[in-house]
């Protein structure tokens, strides 16, 4: 019984091939697991351990260090409200209060219908656009309670709220777990190839003095 779907198993193999050591793929594969189910399950950790040559405990050990990995189900939309200094100065805490009141859950909680999880988060690198919040890591800048209510309204009625979001992001908001709506893909014939640290190698070819070839006059 395997955890990853056939398509995701192929993606996992491709991800692992990008790194000189498979363990480096642990975090990307945890994201992939979360993309598949919205959170990281035990089965996912067991399979990632097998794929990367680690133990399931090591996968949990690494994964639990990082805030984005959830080890229990969360809402379809994770709402992160920044309350750090720049946002605090311009009403981030009041915005969080409104979010909690209007959804009826405290930060850390999930609404009964499984739609929204609310988090009180640290700076999300939008400080000049304070106060701000993100929904599944899509940004909403210079937000106020009305912005938030409109976003919730959009999501509850199946519309994309991104037109209200930070300039330049559009399309739909994928369910929690899907971070990027597309991935890097390196075609085999374009790949330079990973260089393993185990190959006590020599300098890469472009650093080596060019070999003198016949008829090469100016060396």
């Amino acid at each position, binding site marked *: 019984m395997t955890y990853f779907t056939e398509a995701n198993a192929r993606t996992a193999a491709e991800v692992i091939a*990008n790194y*000189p*050591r498979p*363990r480096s*793929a642990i*975090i990307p594969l945890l*994201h992939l697991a979360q993309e598949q189910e919205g959170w990281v399950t035990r089965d996912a950790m067991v399979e990632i351990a097998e794929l990367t040559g*680690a133990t399931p405990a090591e996968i949990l050990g*690494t994964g639990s*260090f*990082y805030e*984005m*990995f959830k080890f229990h189900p969360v809402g379809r939309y994770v709402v992160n409200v920044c309350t*750090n*200094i*720049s946002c*605090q*100065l*311009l*009403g981030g805490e009041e915005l969080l209060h409104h979010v909690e009141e209007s959804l009826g859950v405290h930060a850390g909680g999930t609404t009964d219908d499984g739609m929204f999880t609310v988090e009180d988060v*640290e*700076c*999300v*690198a*939008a*400080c*000049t*656009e304070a*106060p701000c919040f993100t929904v599944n890591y*899509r*940004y909403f*800048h*210079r937000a106020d309670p009305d912005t938030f209510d409109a976003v919730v309204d959009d999501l509850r009625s199946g519309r994309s709220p991104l*037109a*209200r979001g*930070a*300039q*330049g992001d559009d399309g739909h908001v994928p369910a929690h777990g899907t971070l*990027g*709506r*597309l*991935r*890097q*893909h*390196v*075609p085999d014939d*374009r*790949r*330079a*190839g*990973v*260089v393993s*640290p185990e190959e*006590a*190698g*020599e300098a*890469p*070819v*472009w*650093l080596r003095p060019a070999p003198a070839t016949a008829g090469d006059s100016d060396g």
Partner: protein
Amino acid sequence: MAEPTTVHPAGMDYVPHAAGFVANEGPKLLTSRFPYEDSYTLDRALATGAYVGLKSALGRAPDDVHAEVREATLLGRGGAGFPAGVKWGFCPEGVWPRYLVVNGDESEPGTYKDRLLMERDPHQLIEGCLIACYALGLSQCFLYVRGEMALAQERLATALNDAYAAGYVGRNVCDTDFSVDITLHWGAGAYIVGEETALIESLEGNRGMPRLKPPYFPAAIGLYGKPTIVNNVETLANLPWILEHGAAAYKGHGSEASPGTRLFAISGHVVRPGVYEVEQGVTTFRDLFYGDNFCRGIRDGNDLKAFIPGGASAPWFFEEQLDLPLEARDVGAAGSMLGSGAMVVMDHTTDIVKACLRVVRFFARESCGKCSPCREGTSWEEKILERILDGHGRPADLDLLLDIGENISPGPYPVAAHGSEGLDAVSFPPRQTTICPLGPSSVAPITSALRRFRSEFEARITRRDSLSVQAAPVAEGAPA
């Protein structure tokens, strides 16, 4: 925004611009493509000179390219301001392979520039990575991007896919014998991973905890134990311009000690907050906060109370420091740092105790827990500040806070000169009992705020009955 609000919730003048970037007057070395709606596409990039710097580099010997970067005195933009060309020289001879790790973890409160650079001009960053790999013989580049930045991930993924297909990345770059893969790597949410050795631990699949120094630079022993160059996104984004126009032209901008431009994010109580490309050295804090070309003053004509000059880790500055130039050396001598290029402006309405607690809470939450002065100390600091704010402070608490700080960072803590008390500045960086500078960073807001606004803390403690005391009781486990 599609329907831009014209009135900011805080009553500020809101100009709907490119997600925070303000195209003010001045040289644009890094943001020249930003005003284009499609600045992130390969087509737009190629039409506006992308990969010209790379081709110029490929036409020269790798050592030559390194020499050009050293000559340009390109200072690292990740926080420490170490010259990139010098750091590159720390790779031990004859040890291969070598790797490049790009630090795109931007999480220091107040800091907003790398996300913009990745979202709006991914090809500029990719070109910078390629130039570094070519110059130093780096075999693979890992682009470590903060997990929370979904759009940046997508823009970089698309840009990489396009650049691979067009022959700029991968096997035989631009039909030369230079080949390198750039691997986009998603982080997963942890500020401490921005510290370069923690970044490497994370990339190896571990918890992101900093490594014990020495070695001081991963250039000696880094990823998988091999020589590794770690550079910030903005640092690398400067390389295409330098290689296209040359070090001499680069030094024509900014000051001698800090050439070129920097992206500064100015947030908080200013009229026009935003990300500005600014010439270093020749501009002052006052220019930035009050200048018509920049932030246009404090909101509602209010007075300045304090400002953070270089991200949450930096000791705070006040009115007296406004005329300092944006120059690492001067700012360091005055007791703080330009750090990550993040300035947070607080006007006179700011509740200093609250602001101080919020910054300290950040460090307490983000401490990785590897060393005890930081793991324990930051949470004690948080709990004490919390009880002061809640009206349960004790008279000894202020000295207790300073004492905890002393244990994390012994000796005089860097503080801005304080004319009214006849105190001189103690320069940055501080001494530390910890493995990395995160612990000492938590002391910065406390010493800054307490030195200057001690009476506001005392008022919370002695006049607590006049304050609202409906909040939580003393936090469990708070030190006596």
